[in-house]
């Protein structure tokens, strides 16, 4: 696509510039009194506009010989030859135009005076051609850089999407295998409990598939999923696992990325409850202040456990996801104190629209009417 011909605005500006050049050329003709103003204008303006149109074709030359891929000497020679050829062609056409004007008897004795201007016109034609070439190269460079910028941006978006997909919590296969083992044990020991567990497991799997496919879900749904998970684990761990939750009502409607809580809850079981002989309580607390939603999950840990057993990629993935979605507006802090491990998420409280539009200011739209407790 021609960068000037293909763009109306650019073409208009381009021809306007050539119109001005035509005016200037007319002045060059008229000021030394060789031509009258009407003669000069009727010669210079149409010819200049025509030349402007011819010079547009230099783009094709520029395209075949791009700036960075061709040698400097080669380019110089090429454009000098092209410049002289084009300006010579222009002079020829100019002579034709003069002959036509004479034939029409508009201006007498034009051709003799026009011929005297030939060296000037060849020079002007050459310079104007070179300028057009330069403009074309400039536009091409500008478009190439814009294009590469766009391509880079697209690649970044693609990479980010892929990363988000990878970070999205996957159902831990060991959770599945352990649950299936519990069901296998229950079938003979307590058939009703086996059925209950099967149904809970099915419920959990279906919900996590459905919610995981969405961009954002209501916190209430996320918490329900986590509770569903904990109910299943409660069958496995029996009295070792207890759950406490304290949720500030309005927060339920906040939008969060799906399966954000899930890795944290799994972590609390795997590195907390499962490592303790007597188990303990998992505490979930949700509240908000201003426009920030706070989600806090606490679990007891064995203080003697080997420290090099890292808290796991689950937590790190949640952190990366928060960064990818909210940039610096959200964070996940983890602390360990007095035998309690705490994971605390704070993120913008939003109730409508997509969270990809970051909340800039103001209170959470759905929460602002609720008085602070």
């Amino acid at each position, binding site marked *: 696509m021609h960068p000037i011909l293909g763009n109306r605005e650019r073409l208009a500006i381009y021809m306007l510039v050539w119109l001005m050049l035509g005016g200037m050329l007319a002045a060059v003709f008229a000021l030394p009194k060789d031509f009258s103003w009407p003669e000069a204008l009727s010669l210079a303006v149409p010819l200049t506009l025509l030349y402007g149109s011819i010079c547009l074709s230099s783009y094709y030359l520029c395209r075949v010989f791009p700036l960075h891929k061709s040698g400097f000497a080669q380019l110089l020679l090429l454009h000098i030859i092209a410049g002289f050829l084009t300006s010579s062609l222009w002079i020829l056409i100019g002579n034709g135009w003069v002959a036509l004007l004479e034939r029409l008897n508009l201006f007498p004795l034009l051709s003799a005076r026009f011929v005297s201007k030939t060296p000037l016109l060849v020079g002007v034609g050459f310079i104007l051609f070179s300028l057009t070439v330069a403009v074309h190269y400039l536009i091409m460079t500008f478009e190439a850089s814009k294009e590469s910028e766009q391509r880079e941006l697209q690649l970044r978006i693609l990479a980010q999407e892929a990363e988000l997909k990878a970070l999205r919590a996957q159902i831990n296969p*060991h959770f599945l*295998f*352990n649950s*299936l*083992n*519990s*069901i*296998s*044990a*229950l079938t*003979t*020991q307590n058939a009703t409990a086996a059925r209950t567990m099967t149904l809970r497991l099915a419920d959990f799997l279906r919900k996590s598939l459905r919610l995981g496919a969405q961009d954002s879900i209501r916190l209430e749904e996320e918490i329900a999923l986590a509770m569903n998970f904990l109910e299943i684990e409660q*069958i*496995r*761990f*029996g009295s070792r696992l207890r759950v406490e939750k304290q949720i500030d009502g309005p927060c339920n409607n906040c939008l969060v990325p799906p399966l954000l809580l899930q890795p944290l809850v799994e972590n609390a079981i795997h590195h907390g409850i*499962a*490592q*303790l*002989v007597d188990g303990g309580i998992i505490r979930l607390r949700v509240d908000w202040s201003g426009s920030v939603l706070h989600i806090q999950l606490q679990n007891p840990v*064995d203080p*003697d456990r*080997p*420290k*090099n057993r890292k808290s796991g990629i689950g937590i790190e993935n949640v952190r990366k996801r928060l960064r990818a979605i909210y940039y610096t507006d959200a964070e996940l802090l983890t602390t360990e104190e007095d035998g309690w491990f705490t994971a605390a998420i704070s993120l913008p409280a939003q109730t409508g629209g997509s969270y990809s539009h970051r909340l800039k200011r103001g209170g959470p739209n759905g929460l602002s009417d609720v008085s602070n407790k």
Partner: protein
Amino acid sequence: MQTIRTIVVDDEELARGIVLEFLTPYADINVVAECSNGFEAVKAITELKPDLVFLDIQMPKLDGFEVLELVDKNLAVIFVTAYDQYAVRAFEVHAVDYLLKPFTKERFDEALLRAREKMSRSHTPPLDKVLTAARRQEVPLERILVRDGSRVNVIPVDTIDYVEAQDDYVAIKSQGKTHLKQQRLSDLELSLDPKRFVRIHRSYILSVDRLARLELYAKDSRMAILKDGTKLPVSRAGHAKLKRLL
């Protein structure tokens, strides 16, 4: 009929339940204990000396491998776990079989058959060395487990001042106490973090941050003075290693 004394170790009651259920048809299997964590397992295995143990890997206090490290090795072990990534290590410590949860009755019977075969062969391979070899490839030890009778002491390596070789044992000095463990000093040296622990002498490994200063006694003969005033001999090679680290 000779009975097979068996212990079932798993932190989940249901998981123990299915092992017990699958064992019921076998009249010669005598389940002498059920344990729900690593400490209990070490105590039960040490005191009851079972022939066969069904051992979970992920448990509170000690994992299955740590339990095996602390008990006598003349017993058949069947690992029972939901994790498949430990299989190689399990066979390195000469486990009879490795059952992946959930398992079928047929698969369970097969494991039991293998255990019987192994027990009838009576001789057991020297597991000790194999265990250390398996340990060596891992990240440096974060804690040392020492069994005192049927009790298990967990010594975080941060609390160790130094370790002294005593015949077949190592004496681990930590927080004013001495813990004896049947291990060679060179084996322990390999499993400790070389940035924090230096073999300063044929008989001593020193925790570097306990060192206060070095004193020259005679030519090529130095003493390490620890922060609590303890003096330890430093060999020439030990001194070179210390200098490289500091």
